[in-house]
């Protein structure tokens, strides 16, 4: 329903004017004023916050639901840790020590009253609930009872005092040495919807959801620490005790994140492009990566330019790029006006890192920062659209990425090697989105995509939310053309800026803009787990001479062996195409003949197989189903074509002979042990 706030707003709001703009561009119904102190030795935060919340729904509520995200790492019985074990991935990579756990405790909570009135203590009403799985030992959702219901349009103010133990990094959040990255670090209100509070427990494979508001945050850290945070710095006060307090403000965002470390080096830049608002770039980079600073800035600019021109401009006028500390696990994550990239020593240009992650996380400023979908339920709405856009931007800006092999993996660890080597000649051909297939293929049917993201198999989130969405959006791009899909996505972007769209809103925007009913498509890619696989099963092309019996004028059959006129014998070409998967998609069948003439046969793709018969004066050379590779969800490209005469010999020999040299070298290497 927030769409009412949004329609066409960008056409009147200039970029870079947001902070100065007195009129809100978002509902601003959940705003925070926070004071927080970091104790870098004890790894703790102590905070006090005032939440101003306005009920923008049409029904009242007498409860407040808060996320206490850090309690997901309170112990091994939290839902987050339980799910993390199922996906066989430990963010810590080892045993969790006592000092590694993280938690947050609300000490006091009270409802503020008007001038001269005493506040009302709500602490005694606090209780933890587990709406998703009933896990009684999960303490990531806190519910407070209010003394009176908050009516539609009514505003309340709640003050909370809390303290928290900073974890060793889980889910990009935590510390490593004196590096701190602090996301979702304070008691954060859920989203009150027409049917009640939407406040999920913290899950291992999904992210966040919250309302837009104004953040005014004062952060106290040791004075030698450099701070990066959401928003712009509006004040800096030296406290005289070796600490300094930074004050940051940002309006019309749905989260506030900060990071601090004594090691950061600041590099600034500025994005300027015709028809797009300028953006100040602030890069906080590790000293050992200074040589890659321009690569970070350039990639960020590429994202701002691509996304800005495709969907709509970036409005905030500034963005902070964080290069997290080595081994911190904080890389590759998006937050409003701030994101983490992540790179390694020696990363070669052309291998896609750090460019890929930088473009992706910068792109999240659009898909998730400005389109505030519910990542617990529909993570694909931001991750999928953003992955699609990332791949498009990368292909457009850098061309096909080359394969990078990393050597020197410390034995016994799951780390990636220290020493990268770029191998030219190994790229994903055919489509900018082809690299997404590998993750999708194995898990294609593990869950329907319309399943709420937090209910996906914990290992499937990447395959479905990121890869599958990018592949089916790429399929739509191939089917309708970018010149039609781009405006459709842009319409969705404009309609739902600063809102909380649902999947149906996205499909409706697409259908409206494209002017076509997409149910046939979404039913398969979104509301089912169908696999797609079209194949050319066989090709044949033989002289179409008449043999056997034919009718004489008298009606008696007569045996013939040759054509009667003695003219040129045509070739009868037969192609059998098959649909191996359950998914149905209209495809084209291309027949190419020896004289390079082509025949394109449209096929609705519904039957399980189809025979195409053609008689021509020349033999068939090959046949291809879906020659334009429109259907990117096709899980087997190799079987999409078939030549009359196989030509695999040369490449097979080439790669096998090269492989043989490796194998000989391997055997020679083994002589060391004999």
């Amino acid at each position: 329903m927030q769409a009412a706030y949004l329609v066409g707003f960008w056409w009147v709001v200039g970029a870079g004017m947001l902070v100065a703009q007195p009129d809100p561009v978002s509902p601003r119904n959940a705003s925070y004023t926070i004071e927080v102190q970091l104790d870098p030795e004890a790894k703790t935060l102590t905070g006090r916050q005032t939440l101003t919340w306005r009920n923008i729904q049409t029904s009242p509520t007498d409860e407040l639901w808060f996320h206490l995200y850090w309690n997901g790492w309170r112990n091994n019985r939290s839902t987050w840790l339980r799910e993390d074990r199922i996906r066989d991935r430990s963010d810590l990579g080892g045993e969790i020590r006592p000092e590694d756990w993280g938690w947050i405790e609300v000490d006091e909570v009270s409802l503020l009253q008007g001038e001269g009135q005493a506040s009302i203590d709500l602490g005694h009403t606090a209780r933890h609930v587990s709406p998703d799985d009933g896990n009684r030992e999960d303490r990531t959702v806190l519910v407070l009872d209010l003394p009176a219901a908050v009516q539609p349009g009514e505003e309340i103010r709640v003050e909370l005092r809390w303290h928290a133990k900073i974890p060793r990094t889980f889910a990009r959040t935590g510390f490593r040495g004196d590096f701190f990255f602090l996301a979702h670090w304070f008691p954060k209100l859920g989203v009150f919807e027409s049917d009640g509070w939407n406040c999920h427990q913290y899950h291992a494979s999904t992210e966040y959801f919250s309302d837009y508001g104004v953040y005014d945050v004062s952060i106290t850290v040791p004075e030698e620490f450099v701070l990066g945070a959401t928003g712009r710095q509006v004040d800096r006060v030296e406290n005289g005790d070796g600490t300094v307090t930074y004050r940051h403000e940002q309006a019309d965002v749905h989260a506030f994140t900060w990071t601090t470390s004594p090691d950061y080096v600041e590099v600034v830049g500025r994005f300027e492009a015709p028809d797009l608002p300028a953006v100040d770039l602030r890069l906080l980079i590790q000293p050992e990566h200074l040589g890659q600073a321009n690569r970070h800035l350039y990639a960020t600019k590429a994202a701002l330019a691509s996304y800005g021109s495709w969907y709509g401009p970036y409005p905030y006028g500034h963005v902070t790029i964080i290069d997290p500390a080595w081994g911190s696990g904080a890389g590759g994550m998006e937050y409003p006006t701030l994101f983490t990239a992540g790179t390694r020593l020696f990363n070669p240009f052309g291998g896609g890192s750090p460019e890929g992650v930088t473009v992706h996380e910068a792109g999240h400023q659009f898909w998730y920062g400005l389109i505030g979908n519910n990542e617990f339920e529909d993570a694909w709405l931001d991750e999928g659209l953003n992955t699609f856009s990332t791949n498009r931007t990368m292909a457009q800006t850098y061309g096909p990425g080359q394969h990078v092999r990393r050597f020197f993996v410390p034995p016994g660890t799951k780390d990636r090697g220290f020493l990268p080597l770029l191998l030219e000649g190994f790229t994903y051909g055919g489509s900018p989105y082809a690299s997404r297939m590998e993750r999708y293929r194995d898990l294609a049917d593990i869950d329907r995509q319309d399943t709420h993201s937090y209910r996906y198999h914990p290992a499937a989130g990447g395959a479905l939310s990121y890869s599958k969405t990018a592949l089916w959006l790429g399929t739509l791009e191939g089917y309708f053309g970018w010149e039609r899909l781009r405006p459709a996505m842009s319409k969705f972007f404009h309609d739902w800026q600063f809102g909380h769209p649902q999947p149906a809103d996205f499909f409706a925007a697409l259908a409206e803009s494209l002017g076509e009913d997409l149910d046939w498509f979404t039913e398969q890619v979104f509301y089912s787990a169908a696999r797609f696989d079209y194949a050319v099963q066989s090709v044949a092309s033989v002289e179409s001479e008449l043999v056997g019996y034919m009718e004489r004028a008298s009606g008696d059959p007569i045996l013939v062996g040759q054509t009667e006129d003695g003219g040129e014998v045509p070739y009868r070409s037969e192609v059998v195409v098959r649909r191996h998967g359950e998914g149905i998609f209209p495809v084209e069948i291309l027949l190419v003949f020896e004289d390079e003439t082509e025949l394109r046969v449209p096929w609705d793709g519904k039957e399980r197989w189809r025979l195409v018969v053609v008689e021509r004066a020349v033999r068939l050379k090959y046949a291809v189903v879906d020659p334009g590779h429109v259907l990117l969800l096709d899980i087997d490209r190799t079987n999409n074509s078939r030549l009359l005469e196989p030509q695999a010999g040369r490449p097979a020999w080439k790669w096998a002979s090269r492989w043989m040299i490796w194998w000989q070298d391997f055997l020679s290497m083994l002589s060391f042990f004999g």
Partner: protein
Amino acid sequence: MGILRAIYKGLMRMTESSALVLVMWGMVLLSALPMAVVMENTLRTDVGSSLIHEEIRQGLDMGWLEEFHHRGGEFAATLLPARVTPALVFDNLELWFSGAWITEYRGLAAAGGLFLVFWILLQGGVLSHLATPGQSFGWSSFLGAGGAYFWRFLRIAVIMGFAYYGVFRLAYWLFPVIKERTRDLTVERTALIINVMAALFVVVLLGLVHLVSDFARIATIREQRRSMVLALIRSLQRVILHPLQSFGLLGVMSLLLLLVQWVYFWTAPGVRGTSFLALLLTFLIGQLYLMARWALRIARYGAELELFDLWSRPPLDSGRRVE
């Protein structure tokens, strides 16, 4: 005699016994050929009549490669980009150091194990031939010596196999411990240096085991030993008594090998060529590299023989043999 002189003499022995280089290169070629034929057939079958062949003529389309791995199982998964480029030398260095060829590729481990047995069979011939300079190469004497020493060398290999296993176990313990102990480290360069130092430590241990194995085999031939335990003890004693010479020799020869690999890496053709001539040239340069690799291995055996003989010689002023 210095290390360099031993290496020089080893190189001389190698050139005098160049047939050994050809024999070993040829043996490896023949050993690798069946698997290469299987790989060629696997590739040919997978690509079949598909037009995808056009996308894997120059470079490798990564999308197809992923499909190939998906369809082809563990064997197909051994075809990786780094292995079909000159970077294969680094890939094998990584496999050598990490021991991943045993833990990750059971099929390769089995095939490699068979080759090791084969190599152990040939080592007797190689060492006997090197130990008697001037002797012309003959298959009967070569294979005869191989057979004569096979069981003894196999016993050495089994015993030292446990030692290698111990080193790898140590490495698999050490690096995770380093990771755990440096869990607050925020600088990758420092982490790299620490890991390189640890790797050097492991490499030295691997070198020690390797040297003890080599000198035990040499002692077996030179002193006609029957007890391999005693041969190993004797070998260990000599390596400990002459650490600079033994490790220096191994170090210099390893650097020479790395140099050869580096030259191969920079001179071998990339993957773009598709003509028959380009494929042939790539193959031939690869074979030249492998010959050079074996030449160095044979030369190192020759140099180790020189050192062993040197250690066994009585001091000039003693007037009697030490042993």
